[in-house]
């Protein structure tokens, strides 16, 4: 907690010194969002505004609280920092406002590709791109004499060599925690296998397919090279394994990889061997087994126009081009902000975009599919049931949920 506060304070100080433009607001601003470093910087930038209070609530549980916090009138949160998956829940319940007028008034300096436009209306302002891609230990791969894997099959082969040569017992890392993380890995791998989660043009599930079975088999094969506790490991725990030098190969978020080895107490060999590459393909496909993400901010619907304007101004200050002069902030993410010069840490996400990785689907019913996958695939991963049964269960769980929500 102390470190986090310290980091925010550091980012604030850096911002104060770099942003020459003063930011004046006249109404309250309250921001809810995820907690990774880049978002901390955006929150700190918004808080640099003076004239009224700017509150932030940045937590990994943001998606559990942002919708209830915006449904009231007036809404508790005037802005939610979201990604392409989580904006859907806010759109479904109609709690965010179109930003066209505010963009026209205060949005100078925004690039066209930052504007998330749905049916001709600007609903969010994106500030960074994200994707999962390969993070590896160059020194370990050198020791076994292989190139960084381009496919998951090569990753398995390298993992086998690392284990057999006694370098590491469980060389593969993966955020396979039951729930959201496990489902995300399935979504990645399934798209890489050429699958599509829904039947074309409908909300009917389409995962109990040959590609689905191959996806699960690959995930299972990878998990054999993971820490046996993999079903409890989220991104944070997986990164901790990498930092501790227990893992040599993993598929990790760009937004977390950039600052992976800058934590305290990471062994020197891990810092030196740390390397990033693009996402991997699987099963002979050409589209990577990954998804493209953007992170952006929205403005609540149920607030006064003054608050909306203040929020917009503060959030614009949180993504001001002046921040790009700060080396530390610049490495935190692949920013979409004007004036951003990519750092080495951005290589993986750029490669993902260059390889035509599919963006995470923004469908109204994708969240239900994600939840169903996260709960129903664990039996297969534990080895308690067949891949067919797990996929059948996931489809059944999704159908029950989709019926309840009126999608089927």
């Amino acid at each position, binding site marked *: 907690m102390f470190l986090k506060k310290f980091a925010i304070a550091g980012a604030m100080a850096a911002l104060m010194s770099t942003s020459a433009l003063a930011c004046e607001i006249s109404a309250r601003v309250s921001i809810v969002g995820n907690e990774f470093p880049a978002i901390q910087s955006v929150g700190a930038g918004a808080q640099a505004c003076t004239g009224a209070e700017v509150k932030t609530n940045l937590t990994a*549980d943001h*998606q*559990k609280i942002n*919708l209830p916090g915006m449904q009231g009138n007036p809404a508790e949160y005037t802005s939610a920092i979201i990604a*392409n998956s*989580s904006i*859907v*829940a806010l*759109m*479904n319940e*109609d709690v965010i406002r179109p930003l066209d007028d505010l963009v026209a008034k205060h949005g100078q300096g925004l690039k066209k590709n*930052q*504007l*998330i*436009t*749905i*049916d*001709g209306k600007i609903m969010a302002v*994106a500030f960074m*791109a994200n994707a999962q891609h390969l993070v590896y230990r160059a020194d370990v791969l050198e020791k076994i004499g292989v190139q960084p894997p381009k496919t998951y099959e090569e990753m398995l082969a390298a993992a086998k060599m690392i284990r057999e040569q006694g370098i590491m*017992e469980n060389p593969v890392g993966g955020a396979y*925690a039951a*729930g959201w993380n496990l489902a995300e890995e399935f979504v990645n791998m399934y798209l890489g296998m050429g699958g599509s989660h829904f039947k074309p043009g409908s909300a009917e599930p389409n995962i109990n397919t040959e590609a689905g079975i191959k996806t699960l088999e690959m995930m299972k094969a990878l998990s054999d090279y993971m*820490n*046996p*506790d993999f*079903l*409890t490991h*989220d991104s944070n725990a997986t990164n901790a394994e990498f930092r501790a030098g227990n893992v040599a190969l993993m598929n990790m978020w760009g937004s977390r990889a950039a600052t992976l080895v800058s934590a305290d107490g990471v062994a020197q060999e891990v810092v030196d061997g740390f390397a990033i590459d693009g996402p991997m393909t699987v099963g002979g496909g050409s589209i990577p087994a990954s998804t493209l993400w*953007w992170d952006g901010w929205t403005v609540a619907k149920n607030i006064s126009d003054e608050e909306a304007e203040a929020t917009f101004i503060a959030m614009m200050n949180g993504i001001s081009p002046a921040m790009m002069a700060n080396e530390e902030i610049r490495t935190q993410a692949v920013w*979409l902000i004007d004036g951003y010069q990519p750092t080495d840490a951005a290589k993986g996400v750029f490669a993902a*975009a260059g390889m035509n990785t599919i*963006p995470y689907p*923004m*469908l*109204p*019913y*994708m*969240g*239900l599919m*994600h*939840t169903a996958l996260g*709960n129903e695939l*664990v*039996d297969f*991963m*534990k080895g*308690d049931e067949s891949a067919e*049964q797990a996929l059948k*269960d996931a489809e*059944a*769980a999704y*159908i*029950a*949920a989709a*019926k*309840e*929500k*009126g*999608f089927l």
Partner: protein
Amino acid sequence: MKHRTFFWFFLPTGLAMLLFIAMPIVSVVTQSLFTPHEAVLVTVETCTPFSCAQETTIDQEATAALREQSPMGRFVGFDIYTDRGHLAFSEVAQAWHSSDSFGEFLKQLNNLPFYRAMGFTIVFVFVVTPLVIAMGLLIALAVNTVNARLKGIVIFFSLLPFVITPLIGALVLFWMIDSRGIIGTALQWMAGDPSLSLKASTGLMWISLMIYGVWHAAPFAFVIFYAGLQTLPMDQIEAAQIDGASRLQRLRYVIIPHLMPLVTFVALIQLMDNFRVFEPIVGFNASAHATSLSWAIFNDLGGETRQLSSAAATSVITILGVALLLSPVLVRTWRDYKGKV
């Protein structure tokens, strides 16, 4: 007491109960009978930093009109209760017909979220509750014999597990039993199996959760029993001693009968608490191995798309479950009461 006096005495409590117990129950029952409207979907052009594409989204105006018409949503009766996420009537019937043996039927039943949650919850309730009572009694008897000067500090430390916020307590234990944690590593060394992991095996995870349950709640039972022990009739104990009763016999025939009403009380509270087991499952990240009804509610509300009706139905089932579980104890208390009048 006069009826009038009773009325005025009871009024504040009654109002609070109406406001904080009855009304939420009515609300949750209502929510479980209604679901959101049929989604009106449209395909529109969506532009993101990566590309513009035709994507499906919800038609806000049409949805707003539907909500205006019937704000409660669609009335679906007990449909949510019988769907796969809850009692799963049709899935259970199908499992019954398609399975050759009872074991196979149970296996298929365990594949349905509700029955899987019930399976763990029931085992948890009936293992943890008696153990908590036994442990609490043992600690109380032990502390009662401690030198008066040390008593304060011993009581303080015995109470600690109950004082710690449940989620924090669960996290502390979670890291200790990690395969790289102090208990996890010690177990690996003792078993001589470096790949042993408490978190990777369903059976061991269940045991860990139950140990946590006992660890956390035993101090509660201890405090109650310890208070009870202070009211022990010394003349009865002395009489038993003169009659030649051994220590064990005194415990069996004097102390335990004296504490019996308290045992009932602790059992009642613990049955209720353990049926709602939740924090350790979240703290231990154990949802791959064990789920409970409370966890199911949390999961319904925690996804990117919230399922309020489903969560409401599970809540109603939880209330019914608690009532069912408590009914034998309540009936007994009622009979005792009537016997006295």
